[in-house]
């Protein structure tokens, strides 16, 4: 069975609380944590709260690690990163990620990598309560041999060989959304990525939102997550910065460019984090 509401939530609703309390109660050292948001709604505020609370030995799962995981990796929060594209979109490398992989700083990390389609289907399997998903992918690539979560599978009807990927079941999924109502029903819209599946695949979940509103309004393209599949909702206005929140804020492309220089140097990175996140 997948997500059961914890016993302390008798009614079908999420608990609305502060971000520090939600992180303290939901995320533990050693957890597998997925913070999703594909190019949009990246949950930076929650990531920074994890950093401030000093979580360690995390397995960080994310299709596109982006700056948010570059920061957590550089601070030494992660033992392992599971991903499909680890770059600074439109800019280049994630230098803290590379420093960890190439030179083991601040400590060596394990990596497990997939294609986007593979990661997507791993979340779909997790959300569906299945141990694996099937896709056309990986065959002939070096990725096939590098991950214990990829295997060939034969169609029982046609004999065709396809690829199976193991389900992702994060201990905690964290996403950012535009709005929640007072029952913790969550609405996100614009590019909705893999967030629905990431929440449904997780054992526990936290959603930061721009605002809690009295009632959610139906909107074109909106994805709704009922409060009874979300554990905690916390207001975090601007919580996707420097990424963006459709209808609320714009992506700070300049910061993505500046991060290249900030993150190239270990000392400068640490000073920046101290000044802007940890302090």
């Amino acid at each position, binding site marked *: 069975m997948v997500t059961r509401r914890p016993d302390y939530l008798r009614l079908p609703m999420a608990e609305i609380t502060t971000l520090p309390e939600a992180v303290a109660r939901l995320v533990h050292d050693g957890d597998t944590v997925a913070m999703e948001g*594909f*190019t*949009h709604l990246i949950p930076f505020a929650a990531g920074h709260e994890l950093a401030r609370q000093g979580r360690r030995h995390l397995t960080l799962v994310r299709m596109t690690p982006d700056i948010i995981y570059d920061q957590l990796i550089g601070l030494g929060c992660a033992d392992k990163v599971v991903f499909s594209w680890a*770059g600074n979109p439109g800019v280049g490398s994630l230098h803290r990620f590379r420093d960890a992989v190439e030179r083991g700083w601040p400590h060596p990390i394990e990596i497990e990598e997939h*294609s986007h*389609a593979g990661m*997507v289907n791993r979340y779909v399997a997790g959300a569906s309560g299945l141990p694996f998903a099937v896709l056309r992918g990986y065959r002939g690539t070096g*990725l096939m041999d590098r991950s214990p979560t990829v295997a060939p599978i034969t169609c029982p009807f046609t004999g065709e060989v396809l690829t199976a990927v193991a389900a992702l079941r994060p201990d905690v999924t964290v996403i950012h959304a535009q709005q929640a109502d007072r029952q913790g029903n969550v609405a996100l819209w614009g590019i909705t990525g893999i967030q629905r599946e990431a929440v449904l695949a997780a054992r526990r979940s936290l959603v930061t939102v721009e605002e809690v509103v009295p009632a959610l309004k139906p909107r074109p393209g909106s994805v709704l997550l009922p409060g009874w599949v979300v554990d905690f909702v916390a207001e975090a206005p601007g919580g996707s910065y420097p990424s963006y929140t459709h209808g609320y804020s714009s992506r700070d492309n300049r910061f993505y460019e500046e991060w290249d220089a900030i993150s190239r140097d270990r000392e400068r990175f640490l000073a920046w984090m101290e000044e802007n996140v940890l302090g």
Partner: protein
Amino acid sequence: MRGWDAGEMMAVAAARQLGDGQVCFVGIGLPSQAANLARATHAPHLVLVYESGTIGAKPSRLPLSIGDGELAETADTVVALPEIFNYWLQPGRIDVGFLGAAQVDRFGNLNSTVIGDYDRPQTRLPGAGGAPEIAASCARVLVVLRHSRRSFVDRLDFITSVGHGRGPGDRAALGLRGGGPALVVTDLGLMEPDPERKELVLTHLHPGTSVDQVREATGWDLAVAADLGTTEAPSPEELAALRDLAR
């Protein structure tokens, strides 16, 4: 001094490959430039599909990321990632996919994962992203990268995306149903796989480049077409449209 640079030549050459009414899977950077240039010139009905889930996006200027808000706002529909990969890319609904890479080999196989040994990388690259399945499933793949001995290599350090494998029949044996790389566009010229041997053959030089220059920048003994042509230089209209997009 000519009135265009190598990047513009690459974008124009790639754009010309896109037929009106085709469906194109677009990444950021040169692919997005080329696709939007085609849409602004000879292919007004080109359908742009971005892997962030925007189908039929009609941006007025070049988006800075594949998640750019304007893509979602101008799209016919925005779908979640499981749908874009499983319902749209995987079944072969896409006519043309664009791929870049750090390395390409003579069969159009691509590496965007690592330079050096996987476990002790010299340079850790971003990795696969959508590339393996774009390479597998699109009817045609256009590969776009700059020419150098570092990128055109005899042997890839890692196979991220399969082109024509080790030659004829390999794609079918691997169950890859798209056509694979149909063209490689660089800053020096164009290469196409030989229909029989599937090995890349230099078919066009861009204006002002030479065969020696291309072969010098290629890490294997590059074949040259008997009827080697010269790419038409970017027209004033093409350049104007391209620069207008970058405003």
